[in-house]
């Protein structure tokens, strides 16, 4: 209770540099500590090299800081070639004097004979030379394990690596070096590199869980400064390289706009007190065939009529199918698309990992700048993800939409035809602003449909369960079902009056 203020707030003492790695600066609360050494550790295939290159590339493209890349494992031509896919033209940067390699990959002719004592003086001299040549502010060493495999005198290596990082830090460089781990949740690195060289430790993981690969990044320690704790999912995109999804940093603000937009169904607008809020996210849940895709189609069309831009992510039906259905309900998607006020993106849920879907969708949203976005359906995505990954996906997407003041309509398919809730609902109902349930009702020998607005954050709404019909002009919502109870649970009871 009597700790001094300086002990409690060390963050002011360690300045940081923004790495430029998407999302990483957010979870590290400002980037990597300046003029310090950070170990990036991970198992084989955990994207350590991508991180090390990304750090230098972002320095050049975003911060005007040049870099030196010391490669102990991959050949220089391999690094140049492998990183071209991210749009990082290393050869060009070399020509412009912004990037320098120090080639420390093992010799083709096998291990070198050792007679007597030696040190890494040659390596240090070459790194210093490269740093001066391009006036570097950043240096990446990838990966130190190769050095420990190549040379057997590990005590000497540790002492030398300590000396090298000390010299580089003194030269004003912020150092990233990578090290290999043997297991995802064990020692930080195989050779205990972190203990003597690293001020900070970042762990990259590539975990197989529920039959799916999932990449995460965790900042294990950052000496003398604060950072976000825990594992954050990340993905690797051809556009940006590493993209960290800083979940706990994502704030889900409640809908704050008072501006209403149309749902595309006049009666539904009325039930919601005048339409959806412009920055709200609505979940529409119902069994197969209840009209979720119709609701989405009308939502898109309603946006078009209001001179808005509408974006639809379709994970269940093909574009042809969607356009044909829309035409059958009297809505011309083709014309809307031609005027570039509608965009329909079809994806197979299985085609990529959840994080990749999220990053791609975020990019499309940023490029198309829609006023409203529909996802049909979330359940299709849920099937290809872990529960945690799915929830994180919905939170991140919702946050993106809210930040852009974009209305969102997500659909979810309930597994039973009568009543019941979907798993999707259970896990994300607290995230969305409104929930609309679409239900089949068995009534005197025929199937009818009923709809209810279950929740509407920040507004009064019609709490009636109303019957609706679907015809060539779309959805028509009618009178409340007064004589029925048990619609939501699926056990309909009719009350004689």
């Amino acid at each position, binding site marked *: 209770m009597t700790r001094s203020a300086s002990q409690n707030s060390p963050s002011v003492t360690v300045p940081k540099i923004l790495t430029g790695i998407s999302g990483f600066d957010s979870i590290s609360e400002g980037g990597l500590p300046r003029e310090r050494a950070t170990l990036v550790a991970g198992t084989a295939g955990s994207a350590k090299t991508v991180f090390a290159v990304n750090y230098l590339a972002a320095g050049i493209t975003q911060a005007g800081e040049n870099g030196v890349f010391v490669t102990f494992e991959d050949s220089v031509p391999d690094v140049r070639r492998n990183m071209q896919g991210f749009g990082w033209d290393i050869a060009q940067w070399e020509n412009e004097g912004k990037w320098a390699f120090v080639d420390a990959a093992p010799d083709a002719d096998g291990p070198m004979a050792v007679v007597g004592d030696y040190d890494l003086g040659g*390596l240090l001299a070459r790194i210093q030379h490269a740093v001066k040549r391009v006036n570097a502010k950043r240096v990446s060493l990838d990966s130190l394990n190769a050095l420990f495999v190549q040379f057997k005198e590990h005590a000497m290596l540790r002492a030398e690596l300590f000396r090298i990082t000390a010299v580089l830090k003194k030269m004003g460089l912020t150092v990233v070096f990578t090290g290999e781990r043997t297991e995802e949740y064990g020692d930080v690195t195989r050779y205990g590199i972190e203990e003597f060289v690293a001020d900070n430790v970042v762990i990259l993981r590539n975990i197989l869980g529920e039959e799916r690969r999932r990449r995460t990044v965790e900042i294990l320690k950052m000496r003398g400064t604060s950072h976000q704790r825990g594992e954050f999912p990340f993905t690797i995109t051809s556009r940006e390289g590493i993209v960290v999804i800083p979940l706990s940093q994502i704030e889900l603000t409640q809908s704050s706009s008072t501006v209403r937009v149309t749902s595309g169904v006049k009666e539904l607008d009325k039930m919601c007190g005048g339409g959806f809020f412009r920055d709200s996210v609505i979940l529409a849940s119902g069994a197969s065939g209840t009209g979720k895709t119709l609701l989405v189609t009308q939502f898109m069309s309603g946006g078009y009529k209001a001179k808005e831009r509408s974006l639809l992510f379709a994970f269940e039906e093909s574009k042809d199918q969607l356009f044909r259905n829309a035409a059958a309900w009297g809505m011309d998607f083709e014309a809307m698309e031609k005027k570039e006020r509608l965009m329909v993106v079809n994806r197979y849920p299985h085609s990529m990992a959840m994080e990749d879907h999220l990053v791609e969708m975020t990019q499309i949203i940023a490029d198309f700048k829609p006023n409203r976005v529909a996802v049909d359906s979330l359940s299709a995505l849920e099937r290809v993800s872990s529960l945690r990954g799915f929830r994180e996906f919905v939170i991140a997407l919702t946050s993106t939409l809210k930040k852009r003041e974009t209305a969102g309509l997500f659909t979810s398919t309930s597994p039973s035809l009568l009543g019941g809730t979907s798993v999707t609902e259970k896990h994300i109902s607290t995230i969305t602003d409104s929930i609309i349930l679409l239900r089949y009702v068995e009534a005197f020998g025929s199937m009818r449909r009923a709809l209810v607005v279950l929740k509407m954050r920040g507004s009064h709404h019609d709490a009636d369960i109303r019957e609706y019909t679907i015809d060539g002009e779309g959805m028509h919502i009618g009178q409340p079902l007064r004589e029925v109870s048990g619609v939501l649970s699926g056990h309909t009871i009719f009350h004689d009056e």
Partner: protein
Amino acid sequence: MDALHLTLYVAGDTPRSRQAMANLERICAEHLGGRAQCATIDVLDSPELADAERILTTPTLVRESPSPRRRVTGDLSDAQRVMTALGFTTTAQ
């Protein structure tokens, strides 16, 4: 027979560098009959030469010619092992 060229890379004027240079001198005199031409390169003065030869560890001795090229690192304290590493059959008396 091709000329025998050896290059010794050292990092600065340190006890270890001097040790390696002295050991090399002795090996040349006692085991190579004085027919080797030796050059010493300080990587602190000529880092670009160290780059070209991809030197990591110092001291490192390189047998430039005759081929094949061979390398040995360390302070060269054991003449016999240096000779073996460089691929010479020893000519010591």
